[in-house]
């Protein structure tokens, strides 16, 4: 019988984890430097940091890659430590909901027309 909580796509997920790892290793330090270099002390300064459309697109893509990476990693952890299939599925679902929700929320923040107008 097929296991209910393994997707039998291990090599694909393994590769996805490595590809997103490379992307994140480049993008996250880059974004970190951008924000730490500015470090604004007031709200208008903080808000204006997010003004460039390219930056917001890069942030959203980076976090999307991050969620794929985190999903692969959390899946590995759950497959190693959580043996009961039902519990494993429930936890994996919670991971997916958390990550998908975070990306959707971030998109809503970054492309909120009230903050930077329609672009």
């Amino acid at each position, binding site marked *: 019988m097929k296991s209910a909580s393994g997707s039998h796509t291990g090599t694909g997920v393994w590769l996805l984890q490595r590809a997103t790892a490379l992307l994140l*290793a480049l993008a996250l330090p880059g974004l970190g430097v951008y924000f730490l270099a500015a470090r604004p002390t007031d709200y208008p300064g903080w808000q204006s940091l997010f003004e460039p459309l390219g930056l917001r697109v890069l942030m959203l893509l980076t976090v999307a890659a991050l969620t794929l990476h985190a999903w692969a990693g959390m899946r590995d952890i759950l497959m190693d430590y959580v043996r009961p299939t039902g519990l494993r599925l429930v936890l994996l679902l919670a991971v997916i909901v958390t990550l998908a929700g*975070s990306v959707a*929320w*971030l998109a809503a923040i970054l492309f909120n027309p009230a903050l930077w107008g329609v672009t």
Partner: protein
Amino acid sequence: MPQRPVYLNLLRIRLPLTGWVSILHRLSGGLLFLAVPFGVLGLSQSLSDEAGFRRVAEWIGHPLGKLFLLILTWAFAHHLFAGLRHLALDAHWGLDLRQARRSSIAVLLASALVTLLFAGKLFT
């Protein structure tokens, strides 16, 4: 069948250095996963309005907030350096034991250094 010693007591398991880097890579990854929704929450608050910005600034300024930031800084640094090491190992670079041990030490030292530097910035 002879009785073999089985040490599953976490406090009695002795890991080699490379094993520590590996398990900490996993632990730091789990921590970073947990931080994702809170990061988005903080961003949402800080960008909502003047008051939200000040609220997040207060959270970050609080000693407990600083401690969380410091832990996450270590988690990110360790996960990044250990991850790069894993990618190198995947490419069959640095596979022999001596090199693997040396790169493990480098990962532990580099993430400790980043954490210390950040702590210096945070608490002064």
